[in-house]
């Protein structure tokens, strides 16, 4: 049996290790509750720089 989750385009930033293994056609053994990914920020948030991280030089 299998579960497939489909997320809307750009809605999730899947953890890199999972993507890397999958791109090698290698399955990753996981358990319930392990981190899968983070909600992707809205496009406007991605386009704008985070001012908190900006430094005046």
């Amino acid at each position, binding site marked *: 049996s299998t*579960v497939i989750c*489909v997320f809307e385009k750009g809605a999730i930033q899947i953890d890199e290790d999972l993507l890397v293994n999958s*791109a090698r056609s290698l399955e*990753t053994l996981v*358990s319930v509750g392990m981190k*899968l990914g983070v909600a992707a920020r809205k496009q406007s948030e991605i386009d704008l720089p985070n001012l908190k991280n900006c430094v005046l030089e």
Partner: protein
Amino acid sequence: GHGSSKSPPEVEEESHLSRPKQKLHIHGHQHPHLRRIFRRSHGNGYGSGTSCLKLVNAEDFAGIALLTLISAEMKFKDKWLACVSIGEQTFRTEISDHTEKPVWNSEKKLILERNGPHVARISVFETNRISKNNLIGYCEIDLLEFLTRDLDSDFEVFELFDPSSSDIIVGKISISCSVEDPIETEKSFARRILSIVDYNEDGQLSFSEFSELIKAFGNQVAANKKEELFKAADKNGDGVVSMDELADLLSIQQEKEPLITHCPVCGEILEVSDRLSTVVHLSICFDEGTGNQIMTGGFLTDKQASYGWMFKLSEWAHFSAYDVGLNFGSSASHILVFDRRTKRLVEELIDGKIVMSMRAIYQSKIGLQLIDKGAKELLISISEKQGRKMNAAESAKDIPQFVEFFKDQINLAEVKYPLENFKTFNEFFIRELKPGARPIAFMERDDVAVCAADSRLMAFKNIEDSLRFWIKGKKFSIQGLLGKEISSSTFVDGSLVIFRLAPQDYHRFHVPVSGTVEQFVNVPGNLYTVNPIAVNSEYCNVFTENKRVVSIISTAEFGKVAFVAIGATMVGSITFLKKEGDSVKKGDEFGYFSFGG
């Protein structure tokens, strides 16, 4: 038979055997009475252009016979089909045009065994919308007599009798029959087996592919010296074994020290002294199953299919065999998986013969044709039957054995209730875990999604990536996965995460994101295996054809998330613990898979 000879249609005969004599060794002796007939290919299906042997010695009545139902002359116009039955094997032709002289040119392979059945019954049916298949005429042919008779022609005409009275002749049928050259049988077997173990599909066997093959043959002695065998096979020293090199190795090695002691497909122990029978068994097994089943021109009905073979269509095959051990019949093979927790590659054992069976059936056109023609229903009926069995009190006795078999992979300490609490196997199968046994990552943050099941996971940013790296079924699409009732436009080019559960896994699935359950949609379908072998097959579309339940979870952080629970062979029962409108928190139990159809 009731035959009368006619002049041959463009047949050329070779006066001598062009192959070295030792190549014609069968069962340790030569075939002095074999003569080879070469037919020209007519482009109309009659005569394949391959070399065939006509037998003149009854002792040699073993091997694969090529029987061609060429044409018939009937007494009225209709659409016609012909069937040939010998022992448990039955084949049929295509349906002809509306004519009184149907032409089929249908060539079928029949297994001929010493002391086995040798009388073929040929039946000719008229078929139309009103009368369906109506038996018009039949004849019986003693193939032994046919093959041992010295004829000028390699085809014969037989009279067809009325089924209600053998005095009435209703037509005539032209038939040819010859025994496939044993070398051709061996080569065709080598070709077939190579295509199955040739994982990178380059037409050659690397050392690792060769090793898998030798292991699957079930011969421990050969497995221990596979480097030596590989060197012996690789005659040109290019580091790979070609089809011809493999065929040579099989034919030479099998004579002096048999490599193949078990059939890699059905696990049957093979009689090492009877080399041709071994090759015949393997060829038929690879092509068509265990040999116990009846083929009817490429279709299989549930009455005809062998339970054992069908069982091997899924990774659940070894569930039935755990009591005799994984290595029964052939060596265990493995699937490599990356363990995220330990950050190591781990091997998951799976019986080599099951891997091969699944490759043979799910990754070949022939195999999928078999499934298309009746076996789909069989997979469902096997699963339903297994469900009833696993819900019976008697099934509880299987729990300790199952736990012992998977002792390294099932942690009983985290199971909520002691084993004696489970009154049936299915109850154990859908076991709950103790609270906290599966910590939920970043529980307080709804913008972090979590894994939905104890499973082997594949994740892709978009559908293109999933098709490039994993799902090879040509018909896969998001709309196909979600079914007609759910609009796929929301999910077009979305990200895809696949959680595959193995037999030993905790079989409850959990909510990956917090939100509200909007709807559930049942999508009926088949119960193919969801093993990577099937998922990676271009001919099989497990995710869009299997029975499934699609639910939509509406979330603040991720928008809508489609959660698709897909049933598979044996485990086709899907139960949800939440209902439409329920608010769910990530990590909540969402439902479970159990035995059943």
